[in-house]
Structure formats: C-alpha cells, structure tokens
C-alpha cells in the first residue's frame, strides 16, 4: 500500500508521560444520557485506576455503562452522551478536555482498543496487512520496508500461521479467531501503554476464546501494558483479572482484587451476580431411567444443497447420522460450537426444516416418525413438540398483544378463546408474570420477561417435549439464572422431556441429565451428563471442557454458591455506590 506523507507528530506527542503514576486514572466520571432515557446518566461518579502491567476487569450486565466508559476513554463517545463531570487521565494527561487532534495522536500510540466483533472492526476491502500498515503510516515516519518488517513481526507475535499469507489476505478469508488476532495486532503494533478490550471474545467460540484470552495475557505481560478488560462473563473475569470493578446501572458498586470480589463479595448486587453464575459442577438429579421414551432420533441427516445455474453445486452436511433419545422427565443437552449442527438438529426435530434422512420418532414404543411426514398429517402432532428460541426480542410478534400470542396455538387446535385465556392466566402465574401482561405488547417487556412469555406460549400447547434452542444465551447472568430455574421447575412439575441446546458448558452442567457433544454435524460424544463431564472420552470434548473460562476457579458468596441468589434475596434494598 502506498502511504501518504505521515502526519508530523506534534510537539505534544513527544511530551514525556508520567512514569510513576497509574496508566489510566478515572475520577468521578459522569456521563449523561439523552432526555427521555430510562435514567439521567449513563455513568455516574465512577472512579478507578489501571496500573502499569495491570488487568482491571470491568464487569456488569447489559446497560451497566461499561462500554460507555471504554468509549469515553478513547474519546469515541457519540454526541448524545456528553461527559458531564470528572476526569480521565492517561499517564497524567487529561483526556476529557483534549482536542480531537490530540486524541487522534494518542490513539494507537498510547491507548488502543480491541472490539467485540472482529468482522466489523476490520475494513472488508483492505488487506489485513494494509490495515496494520495504516496505523504505522498515520503515527510513525518509518519507511516502507521498516513498516513491512514491523507488520510481519507483530503478525508473528499474535501467533498467526504463515504471516506473509495472512498479511495479504482480506478479512473475509480469515476465521473469526484469526480476525481477532489481526485486530489485536493493530492495537499492539505501536506498543500502547493502555489496552482497552471491550468484550473481545464474546463473539467467538469457546475454544477460540481460550486461545485469544491466553494471547492477550501473554502479550500484556510481554509489553507491560495496562489493560481495561470489559466483559459480562465471570468465567473470563476469573481467568483474566487482577482487580475487578463491578458496575450496576452506571455506578460502581464494588472494586477490589479478583479474590476479594469473586470470593468474598461485599455488595448485595455482586453477591447476586456471582451467585447467579452457573457452576461447572453437576447437580445430583433424580431421573427415572425406565420412563417411557418421548423422542428417539435415528440416523438424522440434513444436507443443504446450494443450487445455482452456473458453477458447481455446493453441498453442506449440517447434520450427519445423529442418534438421540429422550425419556419423559429427562433433559438432554446438546453442546457444541457455532456451526456444529446443534440448531439444525433442533429445527429438524420441531420440523421447522425438513430432514434429508433418518427418522424422528415421537412418543413411546414404536412412535410416529415425523421426519418425512407431509405437513397435513404432521399438524396434529406439532403441538406435542414446542420450541423456545434464543432471541427474546424477535420471538414475539411486535404487533400482537400477549393474550393473542398465548392463545394462538390452543385456538388453532380448537380450544375456545375463553378456555385458552383461562389457561394463559394460570401459565403466566407459573412463569411468574402478572395477568395484566395479557393486555400489553412485547415492547413493554424486558428480555427476560419476554423469554418467560415465550416459555408460557410453548407450554400453552401442553407439549411432551420442550426444545430450548440457546434459550438462555442472550440473557444477562442474573436473568439467565432465573430462566434456568424456571425451566428446571417446569420440567419437574410437568414431567416434561426437554432438549436443551447451548454452547455454554456451565449452563449445560446445570440442567442436563444426558449430554450430546456435537462437532461438524456429528455427535462425537453422547451419554449421561455425569459420565461426559466426569470422564470425557472424545478428544474434542476434552478440548471443549479445557477451554471453558474460569474452570477450576471457586466463586464464593456467603452461605455457599448455591445459596447465593437466596442469600441476597432477603435484603432487597440496594445500597448506593460503594468501593
């Protein structure tokens, strides 16, 4: 790439940073929200510092203001979020009043950022090498050969194979993990003093996540940078943090060392959060091995053929020879990374897509094979299998109220409206929603509430099998715990069979009796959950388990882990900011 004349580094850039103090010092930071928001400030009176070579994890649920803090440090806040007070000092230099030009000079040289979504953080029409080179062009006066050497060196340092080829590749030619390595290389190429990582592994698979986290740790130690690491995942916190700051609704509720915060949390909110983190330990669960089968899947296959007029046909084997069984009252978990085919299997079982081969037997004994059944014959059987989807925001029709959503299914099968409404009320009670919800529309509910409504909608059909397709993955950890307990309660109370699909081993360990591990469309390991967790046989399963973040770290709250949620349930008043 040809490079325009480099911006002459201003005299400011040569100003010697304060070597003794912390790298980042945030004092009393308050950031406003536009009028009409649910609260007046995005961040209120937040103070913390990041020392040299230190990793501070900023944890909080969605809407806690953690990303806003990262943007304010980088000077990337949108106009609608003004800094109302406080100071942000980078190596002693005030950033809140710095000019845009000064901020531009500081970015990449003294502070840099890794974003959540590596695909959108890279420009799709520039090669990866050119994008790293651009950073050097903007901020240094190195010649082309020196720049190229530096680019190759940093690509090697983030441990990308075949650096020459990587540098010449476009972002779409790389995998998600490789892209994130390029983003990290861009961030670290000029050796910044502060690295901000905003949920850098949230979009990645668990095995890739483990590699990226290890890389960030390695590089941080080698470069001695201070790291502000933003995440919602306590497993990641346990792996990465030296100190932890907990945010709730824009205020800092707790700040301390990793062990203090994660094992001896003082604030009720932190305790509630940590109590809600699912453990990797299996729960002892009573289950009846002789219960009748609800579902048997035999040799299920799904092949996608990409038909085009020109060129070769593309064939994708989404699922190959999948065999599963679920008995009444049991929960079968399917775990796997993205693209492993777990959702394809679920959708074949619900017959949202048609399987290409194999059989799906519904009911006890011989069962009815619904895999190839025409839709007319399938209709009376549909009600026996119901599904709850991942995204609660898209699972309810925005233009129909909750009553209409809930009674739709039973009315389709001939139940009267009044009887259906009656059933809807009792189910709302079961999912802990008020009957007044019936008159309201989906946009008036939060994500967790919507997910409970979706569960109620599925239960309206009185199904034998409930399929949960990543049904708790999009939820914040505290809400996730509630919804998981709700699933558990429903399963035991109604003696349902459940198929629980998740990428999160912690979630799987909490709800599953049987576990199937999928990789590349195949079930690579299948058995009772305690056997699969206790003594995984397949290599892939072992790799997956080894990659689970925070493995081996003992989270603790007063009264033990399991009592976490209940422990803080007694004191519902929330103390103002501490720490």
């Amino acid at each position, binding site marked *: 790439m040809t490079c325009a004349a480099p911006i002459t580094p201003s005299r400011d850039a040569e100003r010697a940073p304060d070597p003794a103090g912390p790298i980042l010092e945030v004092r009393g930071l308050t950031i406003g929200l536009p009028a009409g928001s649910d609260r007046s400030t995005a961040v209120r009176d937040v103070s913390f510092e990041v020392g040299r070579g230190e990793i501070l994890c900023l944890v909080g*649920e969605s809407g806690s203001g953690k990303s806003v803090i990262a943007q304010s440090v980088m000077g990337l806040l949108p106009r609608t979020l003004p800094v109302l007070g406080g100071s942000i000092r980078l190596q002693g230099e005030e950033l809140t009043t710095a000019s845009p030009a000064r901020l531009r000079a500081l970015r990449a040289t003294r502070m840099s950022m890794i974003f959540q979504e590596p695909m959108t953080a890279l420009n799709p029409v520039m090669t990866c090498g050119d994008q790293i080179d651009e950073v050097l062009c903007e901020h240094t006066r190195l010649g082309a050969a020196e720049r190229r050497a530096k680019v190759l060196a940093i690509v090697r340092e983030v441990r990308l194979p075949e650096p020459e080829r990587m540098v010449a590749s476009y972002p779409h030619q790389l995998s998600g993990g490789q892209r994130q390595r390029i983003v990290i290389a861009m961030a670290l190429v000029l050796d910044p003093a502060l690295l901000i990582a905003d949920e850098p592994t949230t979009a990645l698979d668990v095995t890739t996540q483990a590699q990226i986290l290890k890389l960030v740790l390695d590089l941080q130690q080698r470069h001695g940078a201070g790291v502000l690491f933003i995440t919602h995942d306590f497993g990641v916190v346990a792996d990465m943090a030296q100190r932890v700051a907990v945010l*709730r609704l824009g205020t800092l509720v707790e700040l301390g060392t990793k062990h203090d915060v994660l094992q001896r949390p003082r604030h*009720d909110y932190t305790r509630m959060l940590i109590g809600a983190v699912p453990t990797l330990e299996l729960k002892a669960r009573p289950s009846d091995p002789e219960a009748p089968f609800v579902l048997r899947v035999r040799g299920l296959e799904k092949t996608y053929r990409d038909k085009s007029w020109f060129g070769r046909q593309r064939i994708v084997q989404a699922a190959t020879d999948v065999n599963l069984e679920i008995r009444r009252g049991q929960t079968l978990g399917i775990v796997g990374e993205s693209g492993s085919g777990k959702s394809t299997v679920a959708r074949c079982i619900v017959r*949202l897509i048609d399987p290409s081969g194999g059989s799906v037997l519904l009911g006890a004994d011989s069962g009815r094979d619904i895999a190839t059944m025409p839709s007319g014959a399938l209709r009376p059987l*549909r009600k026996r299998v119901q599904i709850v989807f991942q995204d609660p925001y*898209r699972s*309810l029709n925005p233009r*129909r109220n909750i009553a209409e959503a809930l009674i739709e299914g039973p009315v389709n099968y001939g139940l009267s409206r009044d009887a259906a409404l009656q059933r809807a009320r009792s189910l709302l009670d079961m999912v802990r929603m008020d009957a007044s919800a019936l008159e309201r529309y989906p946009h008036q509910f939060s994500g967790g509430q919507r997910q409970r409504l979706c569960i109620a909608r599925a239960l309206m059909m009185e199904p034998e099998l409930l399929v949960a397709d990543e049904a708790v993955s999009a939820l914040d950890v505290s809400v996730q715990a509630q919804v998981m307990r709700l699933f558990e309660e429903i399963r035991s109370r109604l003696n349902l069979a459940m198929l629980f699909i998740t990428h999160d081993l912690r979630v799987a360990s909490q709800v599953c009796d049987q576990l199937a591990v999928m990789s590349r469309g195949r079930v690579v390991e299948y058995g009772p959950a305690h056997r699969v967790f206790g003594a995984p046989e397949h290599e892939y399963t072992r790799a997956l388990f080894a990659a689970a973040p925070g493995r081996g770290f003992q989270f603790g709250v007063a009264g033990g882990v399991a009592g976490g*949620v209940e422990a803080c*349930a007694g004191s519902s008043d929330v103390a103002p900011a501490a720490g």
Partner: protein
Amino acid sequence: MESVVRHPATLADAASFDALSVEAASVVTQESAWTRVRKSLSVRLGAYFLLLLVAIALLAPWLGTVDPSLFDPASRDLLPGRQGEITTLEGETLKHRFLMGSDSFGRDIYSRVIYGTQVSLIVGIAVAAVAMAVGIVLGLLAGFLRRVDGPLMRLMDGVMAIPAILIAIALVAMWRGSLLTVVLAIAIPEIPRVTRLVRSLVLTIREEPYVEAAVSLGTPTWKIMLRHILPNTVAPLVVQGTFICGSGILTEAILSFLGVGLPPDTPTWGNVMAEGRAQFNEYPHNIFFPGIFLALTVLAVNILGDGLRDTLDPKMAKRV
C-alpha cells in the same frame, strides 16, 4: 396444566431477586411509532398541506368558481385578475373575475385548476390503492410459494424493463381515456415495485422466530401471512404508498399534457397546461398556475413520505 398451583415461596423469592436485577430496574420506555409519526415536522407539514388540498377539492363549487367547462369567446386570453363575463349553459351571462386569467377558449383557469385538484387527488390515491392491493397479493404469493416465485418475478422484471410512461401511454391508447383507464394505466407499471418490496419483506419476516413459533403452534399458512407477516410490512408499505401516490399524480399530469390522458375538456392540471402550451410566450400564467399546484402537491406528498420513512423505518427505530 390443571395441576398448576401457586408457589408462594418461590414467587416471593423471585420478587426480591427482581429488585436487585438490573433488568427489573431499567424501565422499558419506548415511544410508539404513532407518537413519533405525529411529532415529525415533515409528516405534519406534508399532511397539513394535503388536508388543505382535500378541503379545496371538496369545497371547489363554493370557492368562487364557475363550471370549469364553461367558455365565453368574449373573455378569451384574459390576464389574471381581469373582470370578464361568462355564459352559463342556460344562456345566462354572468360577470366573473378571472383570478388566474382565461385560456384561448375563454375558460376560467382558476375554476379549472381548483376542480383539477379533485382529479389529481382521486388519481393519486386510487393509483396507490390499486398498485398496493395488487402488489401485496402478488408479493405475498411470490414470497410464500416457491413455485410461483420464479415465473411471477420474471414477469415483473419484464414489466419493469419498459418505461412506466410508455406502458401507460400504450394502455390508455388501447382503452381510450377515462378516469378508470387512466388510473389502471398508471397503476400497472407501479405494481412490480410493490411486489418486489412485499416479497423481500416477506422473505425476511418469515425467517423471524415469531413466525417459526407460529408454525410450531400449528397456525395455517394463510393465517401466518395475514396475522404475522402482513401487519409487520405495514410501515414500509405506507411509505411506498405515499411515493406511488406522488408519482401517480405526476404521471397523470404528464399523460394529460401529452394528450393521451383524460379527455381535454376534463379539468385536470395536465390538460390546462397542455392547452396553455401553444401560448406560453404571451400568456405564461396558463401553465404557471396549474404547474405550481402540481409541484406543491407532489412536494407535499413526498415530504410526507420522507417523514414517514424516517419515523417508521425499523433501522431508525431504537431498540430498548
């Protein structure tokens, strides 16, 4: 399900849990689309002007007009504001002030322009209604039925390949000009655009989990189309409808101007302009007044459409 009983312990538990949960603390506030639409300046501006035009169209006989087809050789080519006389069909001669002058037949341009508002609005709204109705049906079919999709969309591509005005001219020439034929002739070339829009909306919306949920609830396909898909296409369709209305008014004027629209004695803005064309150098007002009305009307419709697009577009709507 009859076995459902209350569990007070867990219920209270959940309540206090909710008190700490961030989710419970953040109040979900979202302005409804209707509120946003009403607040929008361009929607108001466009809507008020169109309401004014509707009022003019309805009140045309009481706005100091005479029968727009009346002419009087004695009052030909009068300049705007001149006093003249005009003879009614009963042979009665009236004194009349020609606010916008008169044309070469001695007809009152003001009356013709005011009555022309009726024609333009009727044509605009009718064209939008016809194009939308047919387009929605075809779009739903194409989006839902694989077998219909290919042939139907290729046909639509074919229609789109011919310039709209050319199709309209050909159709009117074939059928002879009347209000109905003009409306159909203008609406037909607009149908493919609506069909394409509806089809693309159907293709995205039918992948939404709430549609899949409806499938697993055993909802028949036609009910899914009417209950789950069609209501969610309303916002973009309303926007598209206003733009079709605007271009329909314009196309009608073009057809009339070219002499292939409504019969020349019908008072339409296009007809008035067509008659004034020959004398444009001496009497520019013959074209100026209907032209101003036409321009402002189309502008108002488009401003309304822009405002609706900005407020109803799902990309602009904030997700809380």
